[in-house]
């Protein structure tokens, strides 16, 4: 079989997804056996013009990590889409917006104000901000446009597969490589994880217990065998797709929702909010107000990885 052509790209991301690819260790050699890498900004020195020169559809698979928060990222997403047969949203940011999409609680003006004026290391008395184009003696300089709203990859191009996770776990990456190598990829649109919720896969003891108080992770050392939610710790298991191997749960930490909503759930935050309100055992108004206080940052907690793909997508501007 001719070698596959593989592109890896990072947009608005932390770099962790690229590291996750390297974390497959010696299996990376299998990938090298299977595919020629044509673009991988984190590791290899290919340029955009190399990609532009390629024929449409000549890249077999593109693993695209990171969300889309500026015009350069959108442009490259479109370019890679055009050149690739299979586009993969790789990691929570590309799939759902991820951590960068917490920026959807604010907007460009506020972010610029914070980054270029308020942040303590600034000395920007003439209030200069990045411009998309600036004329200087030597000519015109251009910068990508910074968007108000962080987008998912699927917001800007068609996507064949979604590999969730912050970052995607190694066994999921290997599963994808294996499906690719054996030409057994599922029909397009598939999310390569479990169909069930994380709770369905979790082995902790659940007793249908009600709670009366919420603890933040630093306020309690959880019992290792019992359901975290039933100990009063906000665990996003009921509103999160399984398939991660319960990485956080096994470390005695609550799930923060990086696998996105499970099948059939349209909004992870709404789902989690319901789940939490349901297990609370209180009726009095004052008690309810206390519970609401204890959930310090509902939107940031319930949509930690999912703002861009949530029902409302961003804060109203």
């Amino acid at each position, binding site marked *: 079989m001719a070698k596959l052509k593989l592109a890896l790209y990072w947009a608005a991301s932390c770099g962790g997804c690229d590291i996750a690819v390297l974390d497959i260790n010696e299996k990376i050699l299998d990938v090298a056996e299977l595919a020629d890498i044509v673009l991988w900004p984190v590791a290899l020195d290919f340029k955009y013009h190399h990609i532009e020169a390629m024929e449409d559809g000549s890249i077999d698979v593109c693993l695209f990590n990171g969300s889309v928060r500026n015009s350069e990222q959108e442009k490259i997403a479109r370019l890679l889409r055009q050149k690739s047969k299979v586009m993969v949203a790789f990691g929570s940011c590309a799939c759902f917006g991820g951590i960068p999409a917490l920026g959807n609680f604010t907007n460009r003006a506020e972010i610029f104000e914070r980054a270029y004026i308020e942040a303590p290391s600034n000395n920007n008395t003439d209030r200069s901000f990045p411009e998309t184009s600036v004329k200087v003696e030597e000519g015109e300089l251009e910068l990508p446009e910074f968007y108000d709203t962080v987008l998912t990859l699927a917001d800007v191009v068609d996507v064949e597969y979604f590999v969730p996770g912050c970052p995607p776990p190694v066994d999921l990456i290997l599963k994808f490589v294996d499906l690719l190598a054996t030409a057994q990829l599922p029909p397009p649109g598939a999310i390569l994880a479990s169909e069930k919720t994380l709770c369905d896969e979790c082995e902790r003891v659940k007793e249908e217990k009600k709670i009366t108080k919420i603890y933040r992770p630093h306020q309690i050392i959880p019992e290792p065998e019992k359901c975290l939610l039933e100990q009063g710790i906000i665990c996003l298991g009921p509103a999160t797709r399984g398939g991660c191997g319960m990485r956080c749960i096994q470390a005695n930490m609550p799930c923060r929702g990086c696998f996105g909503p499970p099948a059939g759930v349209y909004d992870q935050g*709404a789902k989690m909010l319901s789940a939490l309100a349901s297990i609370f055992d209180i*009726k009095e108004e004052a008690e309810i107000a206390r519970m609401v206080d204890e*959930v310090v940052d509902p939107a940031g907690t319930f949509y930690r990885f999912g703002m861009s793909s949530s029902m*409302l997508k961003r804060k*109203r*501007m």
Partner: protein
Amino acid sequence: MSNSDFEPKIVGFLCNWCSYRGADMAGTARIKSAPNVRVVRVMCSGRVDPIFVLKAFKEGADGVLILGCHPGDCHYVEGNYKTARRVPLLKKMLEQLGIEEERVRLDWVSASEGDRFSSIVNEVTAKVKELGPFRVNERG
């Protein structure tokens, strides 16, 4: 558009056993109420998933009204208590999303309280009028 000629669209989720009958009662008794609430009948206020509220706003509602049986009177015993916990938490979350919490109103109306139904409808309509139209930005 000035707020005075703005007629808000408000989605009302009314439980079948008390509040919907209360609304019916208001109708039969010919009590006048603002025409802005579009009623969706649900079996219990506990059926109102927060996603219904988000979806209402996404589809262009300016406000949402949720009415159920008075505490202790829910046909399904606990449904309205669940709603009573959910809605305040939802309001806190909506504020973070830039949706004023007064756009959502939760209250209790029994089958015999036609007048109460009508005054709640009038109040929520006036409140949402004051806040002005709601819009969702898809992409900035």
